[in-house]
């Protein structure tokens, strides 16, 4: 019997330069393609960044705004991510989540998920861990109030963004310090989320230098296991941070930001302690409306420690990226970038598992080039590009893509894309050591060939709809094999192939000036095949436990006298049983928020998960039931 017990650790990640400035196409004709709402988001000074506006991107993009998050009553980042209809989000226990796009929410390891096919960035700082290629969501504490927007791209985005963007990218973008001037204090109390508080102050030195600082505290209760026992998974975290934005001139913008955090997460067997620090600097130099340089460096340290299991991991990451955009003739816009990432970790082996070697330096070299071609006199836009990476485990990887957009009218767009995405091997695949299984130094990168087709239409200014269909051919997917050389000890190999397909629908509708609706439906299906007779037949059970479909609907209402009534409802299909996990029942639930603003005060009451106790994800031994909960919060802003 293979037993992959592994109490995992830390954050760190992968590369790429941030594209944080609101895209401001410089030509009036390009601006015409924006909706009035989008126009209102453009900074008149950011004449640079002739980026394609999100609504015109030839990819399945969803954007969650700060207002969407605030009005949802979400209290953690993964709860906010539920608002993207193209993400599959399951709460594993009080502090762990499984998050993916287009499937592959991998098995619960210890308690989190092995999901490893998303690239997640906070202001351009990658947060996935090279330990297993996923994200420790319980160490990611961006204050939700400081998030400007979250861009979620489903489908491969490796050409620009790099490895692990196999099934999608989550790009979390915080507000400029210039946009968060003044102070605010929030306190809250609740039944599951028991106590939280946040204080923030933003100010200015001179007329070009803006800063803000914040601190927040969060304390959540434990869940109950399906067996009726206590989950022992309560948790709390404290995080503080700052951001400064300096507009040295109209063409130079410097951002420096950083965070420190500390927390503890209960586990049924052993409490984990995490802490970390990060700091990032980004310099944007705009030399003409169509060309700019972006240079970004960051350092991130994160530690996760399980005293009773002895295991500890400390990961440090240093990253530098440079990106250049410039026009070439009338029809071409070239974007290229280079990056280097230096990661080094140190592991204290656990009682029953380890990663060998205990210390490792991981270097990642990357470069990409992309040409956006807009043939004059046509409504077409062709984007071709590729990324080259050299990683410590599998060497060179190439991730090309071709995207074509056709905009026959201002209100609609048809797009198609073909791309290759790669998931680099992680230490889990190559260097894991347990009594029953071994990582494989020859483990190759997993890859996907993805074909996508999409259509976006805005029949009226009040209504926008989008549909995206995908067909993915994955090869070299991880398998767990019998190793004839070492009977009784399995080995990790690349012996699965997967075909996946699905469709994503989403829409937004301004039903009245006071009532806005948004939401979507996602359907996905996958078929696993084994390529070797040595692979254990239920290898697929480790890689994916996904619902076939889900529906999400958010309603935001501004009632008279400053009253806000907001609802987020969702229905998630069953997680079918696997050889390792029992079935998880389908569920329908809703979060309701009632808010009231008077002067500088805002008070709100939120009921989360109205349907009550249900499990959203399972693991061989444990499943946790997420309770119905209530919390109230009071904010004073000045």
């Amino acid at each position, binding site marked *: 019997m293979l037993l992959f017990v592994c109490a995992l650790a830390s954050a760190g990640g992968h590369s790429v330069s941030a594209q944080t400035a609101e895209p*401001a196409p*410089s*030509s*009036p*004709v390009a*601006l*015409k393609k*924006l909706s*009035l*709402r989008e*126009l*209102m*988001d*453009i*900074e*008149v*000074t*950011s*004449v640079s960044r002739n980026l394609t506006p999100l609504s015109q991107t030839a990819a399945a993009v969803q954007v969650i705004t700060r207002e969407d998050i605030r009005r949802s009553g979400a209290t953690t980042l993964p709860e906010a991510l539920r608002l993207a209809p193209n993400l599959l989000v399951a709460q594993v226990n009080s502090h762990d989540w499984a998050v993916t796009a287009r499937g592959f929410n991998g098995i619960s390891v210890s308690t989190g998920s092995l999901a490893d096919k998303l690239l997640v960035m906070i202001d351009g700082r990658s947060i996935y861990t090279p330990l297993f290629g996923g994200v420790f969501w319980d160490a990611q504490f961006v204050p939700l109030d400081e998030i400007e927007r979250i861009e979620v791209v489903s489908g491969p985005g490796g050409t620009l963004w790099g490895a692990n963007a196999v099934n999608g990218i989550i790009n979390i973008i915080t507000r400029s310090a*210039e*946009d968060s001037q003044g102070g605010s204090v929030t306190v809250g109390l609740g039944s599951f989320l028991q106590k939280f508080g946040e204080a923030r102050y933003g100010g200015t030195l001179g007329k070009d230098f803006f800063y803000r600082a914040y601190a927040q505290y969060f304390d959540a209760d434990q869940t109950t296991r399906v067996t009726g026992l206590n989950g022992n998974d309560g948790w709390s975290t404290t995080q503080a941070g700052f951001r400064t934005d300096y507009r*040295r*001139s*109209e*063409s*130079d913008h*410097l951002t420096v930001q950083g965070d420190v955090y500390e927390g503890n997460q209960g586990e049924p067997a052993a409490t984990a302690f995490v802490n970390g620090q990060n*700091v990032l*600097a980004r*310099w944007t*130099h*705009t*030399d*003409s*409306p169509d060309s700019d340089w972006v*240079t970004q*460096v*960051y*350092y991130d340290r994160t530690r996760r420690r399980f005293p009773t299991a002895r295991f500890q991991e400390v990961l*440090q990451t*240093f990253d530098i990226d440079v990106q250049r955009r410039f026009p070439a003739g009338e029809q071409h816009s070239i974007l290229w970038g280079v990056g280097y990432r*230096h990661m*080094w970790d*140190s592991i204290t082996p656990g009682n029953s598992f380890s990663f060998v070697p205990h*210390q*490792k*330096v991981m270097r990642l070299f990357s470069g990409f080039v992309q040409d956006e071609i807009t043939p004059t006199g046509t409504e077409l836009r062709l984007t071709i590009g590729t990324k080259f990476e050299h990683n410590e485990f599998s060497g060179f990887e190439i991730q090309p893509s071709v995207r074509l957009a056709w905009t026959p009218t201002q209100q609609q767009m048809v797009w198609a894309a073909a791309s290759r995405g790669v998931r680099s091997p992680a230490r889990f695949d190559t260097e894991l050591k347990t009594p029953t299984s071994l990582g494989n130094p020859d483990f190759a990168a997993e890859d996907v060939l993805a074909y996508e087709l999409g259509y976006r239409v805005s029949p*009226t*200014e*009040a209504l926008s709809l989008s549909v995206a269909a995908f067909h993915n051919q994955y090869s070299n997917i991880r398998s767990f094999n019998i190793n004839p050389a070492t009977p009784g000890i399995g080995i990790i190999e690349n012996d699965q192939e997967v075909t996946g397909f699905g469709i994503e629908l989403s829409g937004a509708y*301004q039903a*009245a*000036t*006071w009532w806005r609706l948004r939401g979507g439906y996602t359907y996905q299906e996958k078929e696993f095949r084994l390529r070797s007779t040595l692979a254990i037949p239920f290898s697929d059970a480790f890689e994916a436990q996904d619902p076939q479909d889900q529906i999400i609907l958010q309603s935001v209402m*501004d009632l*008279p006298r400053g009253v806000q009534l907001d609802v987020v409802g969702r229905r998630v299909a069953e997680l079918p049983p696997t050889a390792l996990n029992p079935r998880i029942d389908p569920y329908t639930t809703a979060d309701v928020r009632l808010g009231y603003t008077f002067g500088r005060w805002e008070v709100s009451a939120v009921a989360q998960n109205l349907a009550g106790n249900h499990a959203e994800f399972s693991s061989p031994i444990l499943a946790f039931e997420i309770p119905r909960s209530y919390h109230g919060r009071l904010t004073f802003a000045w």
Partner: protein
Amino acid sequence: MVTPRIAFFAIALTVTGTLSAQTVADAEYRIKAVFLFNFVQFVEWPPNAFANENAPLALCVLGTDPFGESLDQVVAGESVQNRRLVVRRPNITEIDDCHLLFVSKSEQPRLGEVLQHVGSAPVLTVSDIDGFVTRGGTIGFYLDRKRVRFEISPSRAQTRGLKMSSQLLGLGKIHHSGPKGGGP
């Protein structure tokens, strides 16, 4: 394996060239030009605002034109409610067949005179002069954290026979200028 500490704070800022203030102003008015184009799609004029069925819908710029060519580029070849859009740059005595009248900042000293001239004709007046809506205009641009926003007086549009869509009202800041006020 050692874990070297890397000092990474120092970033040399070498500034090569700056954008002129003019370029930024251009960007601002490119955006405002597209706003004007959007406004006419959300407003319905009464039939008597047009000389005949084929009369175009005229966007007029009064005073020093801050848009350069961008307004012409935005409007070129477009039509709204089956009426061709045209851009005109009339003087104050020639504004009778304007449907949207953008009042340039150069007209600030004689804004009262301009608005008096418009009277209660079915003309959508727009400007970025400070306090434009308070002083009797219908839509006023302002900048909020370097983004273009607009203030709008639904009651004043109503008295001119202009119907505004609720989407437009939802995006603008409502100015309660009339006796009845407006908006939710």
